[in-house]
């Protein structure tokens, strides 16, 4: 089609002549309005539909504006959607959630409970706010999207490490300072169940444990090693199982912080002596936290075992490495082997067959060391390093050894100074 605009003298004449029988139809056509046919039904004027594309061809957008924007790159740039802000200016009461924060981040269990807390507030009615109470170091960046209206972050060194006595005193202090309608804890081995039980014993409340169906009035708990459903009135303190509620995903929240200065703490009876060194290969592969996994790209197996020992990582392997006899069958990661749940997974020389990717589906951070930049593992990984695995592993071991030596010499200096 040419760019020349053709005039239609007849149409112009009809538009000028208000007494022409077709005058109304032509005017409404010009304005883009509806056109009525002789029998009164609405007609579409096909020449008015669509728009002229960049190369002069007429385009009809049947996706109603949902297609990727034509300008710029062809990749569909994801637009940052600003979710509506949920604001509580002066809360009448609080529902306090004490998340586990495994590794400093909210787990999916924590997010479910935050969502449930909002559900409880809407059932109670009134201006209630969800407060998250966190101890120690926090790496989570999206408290606002997880549904946290108020954030209570207690960062005193007294709460670091294993300090259940100090923590429960802080919780009891917060309980006296705020009007707390419910305390919600994850019923998990990460410390949520322990802390919740301690608080319940301290406040003399009877908590709902292993709760999985929660409303403002009633709660259903598992009992007798999950063979019994106990229905009871919702108490003030509840420890909740996984998938008890739906996480927040349609609103943004303030996550403004509430400060508590000078929490009175009594001397505890329990002294934390730190984590013990455990033989990483004695930990079952399915629950290991840190896995160094080898595939077809490994040629120096002695160095691989040495690297795993130096890093303190549990050893894993792909199917090829197991079939070739370099690793035992119990070390195989993937659909036919073990489905791992590690937080950090280093895949050395594994290109990433789909069966292997299924096995690492629950892993948080994958690090790929590979010679092929186009393989599937690189697409999955948070950090990919393209190069020879032998060189990179030896360099990494040198770094870790230097770090360990430095740490031990520092601690020696400290002990001398003391």
């Amino acid at each position, binding site marked *: 089609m040419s760019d020349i605009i053709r005039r239609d003298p007849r149409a112009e004449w009809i538009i000028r002549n208000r007494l022409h029988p077709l005058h109304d139809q032509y005017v409404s056509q010009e304005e883009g309005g509806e056109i009525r046919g002789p029998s009164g039904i609405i007609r579409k004027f096909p020449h008015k539909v669509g728009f002229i594309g960049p190369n002069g061809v007429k385009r009809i957008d049947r996706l*109603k504006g*949902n*297609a990727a924007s034509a300008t710029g790159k062809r990749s569909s740039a994801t637009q940052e959607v600003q979710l509506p802000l949920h604001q509580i200016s002066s809360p009448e009461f609080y529902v306090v959630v004490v998340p586990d924060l495994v*590794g400093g981040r909210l787990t999916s269990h924590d997010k479910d409970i935050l969502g449930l807390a909002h559900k409880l507030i809407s059932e109670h009615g009134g201006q209630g706010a969800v407060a998250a109470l966190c101890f120690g170091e926090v790496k989570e960046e999206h408290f606002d999207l997880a549904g946290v209206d108020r954030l209570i972050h207690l960062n005193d060194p007294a709460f670091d490490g*294993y300090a259940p006595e100090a923590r429960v005193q802080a919780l009891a202090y917060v309980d006296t300072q705020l009007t707390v309608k419910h305390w919600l804890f994850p019923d998990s*081995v990460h410390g949520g169940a*322990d802390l919740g*039980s*301690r608080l*319940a*014993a*301290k406040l003399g409340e*009877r*908590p709902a*444990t*292993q709760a999985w169906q929660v409303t403002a009035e009633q709660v259903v708990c598992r*009992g*007798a*090693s999950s*063979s*019994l*459903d*106990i*229905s*009871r009135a919702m108490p003030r303190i509840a420890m909740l199982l996984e*998938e008890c509620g*739906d996480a927040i995903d*349609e609103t943004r929240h303030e996550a403004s912080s509430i400060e508590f200065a000078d929490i009175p703490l009594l001397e*505890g009876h329990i002294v*934390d*002596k*730190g*984590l*013990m060194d455990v033989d990483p290969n*004695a*930990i079952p592969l399915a*629950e290991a*936290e840190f896995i160094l996994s080898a595939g077809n790209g490994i040629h120096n197996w002695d160095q691989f075992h040495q690297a795993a020992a130096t*890093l*303190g990582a549990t050893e894993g392997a792909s199917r090829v490495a197991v079939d070739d006899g370099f690793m035992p069958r119990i070390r195989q990661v993937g659909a036919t082997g073990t489905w791992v749940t590690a*937080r*950090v997974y280093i895949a050395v020389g594994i290109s990433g067959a789909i069966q292997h990717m299924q096995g690492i589906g629950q892993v948080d*951070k994958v*690090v790929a060391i590979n010679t092929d*930049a186009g393989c599937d593992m*690189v*697409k*999955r*990984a948070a*950090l*990919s*390093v*393209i*190069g020879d695995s032998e060189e*990179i592993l030896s*360099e*990494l071991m*040198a770094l*870790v050894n230097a*770090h360990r030596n430095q740490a031990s010499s520092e601690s020696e200096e400290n002990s001398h100074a003391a």
Partner: protein
Amino acid sequence: MPHKIISLISVGRHPQSGRARRSDQDGRAVELGLKLSGSQLEVVHAGDSEEPVLRQYAGMGLAEITILEQDQSMDAVASLSTYLASRDADIVLTGVRSESGESSGMVPYILAEALGWPLVARVADIVEIKDGTAEVLLALPRGQRRAATVKLPFIATIDSAAQEARQSAYGPGLRANMVAQSGANELDELRANWSEAPAKPRPKRLKMVKAKTAADRFKAATAKPAGGSGKVMKNESTEEKAQAIFDLLIEEKVIR
């Protein structure tokens, strides 16, 4: 001087058949108690003295079991706390959670609060008791262990990572002495108002797609899960690559 150690036991439930059995974690608590004080160990149960399961515990080599006789609907905490207050124990061992009843795991916490003792949860082992403090190993998730010291007296809940309970011998179990005392008769009033039913299977969570248009739904059904666009290092030197991995490991705290 030997330390006075008391293990609390309960009636367990076999996970498949549902039969009454020696509770797994309580068995481990008795095992740990036997390791620490041998025949001096005192084993206490609050409930029915005719219960045959108690013979399975006794078969682990116990000469006698103390039973605080009470009905099933009564509160076990009341009789246990008055009994423990009178016994002047150093360490009380329990399981984390009972396998029958409410199984809230609250009994040790309420006892600790009532006696004013510290409580250590999920103990894998008690390594040493010296000068009025005990060195304990705590079981953490993912097979990790934490060392801690606690002042005596204290209550410890024993995790499933502790030493497995030894096999129970039938004959010695039958010959063991069951010493019954009358326990406190306090009705568990809150629990009387609860309704109990066999556990319903929990519904699996479905993946909800909150798409507004057909195009969005199509995208959600067909698109691969967005692989978080990771950082790719290709042309850097080997040192820089190794340093990047090392920094990530330090940030994730897997290297200490």
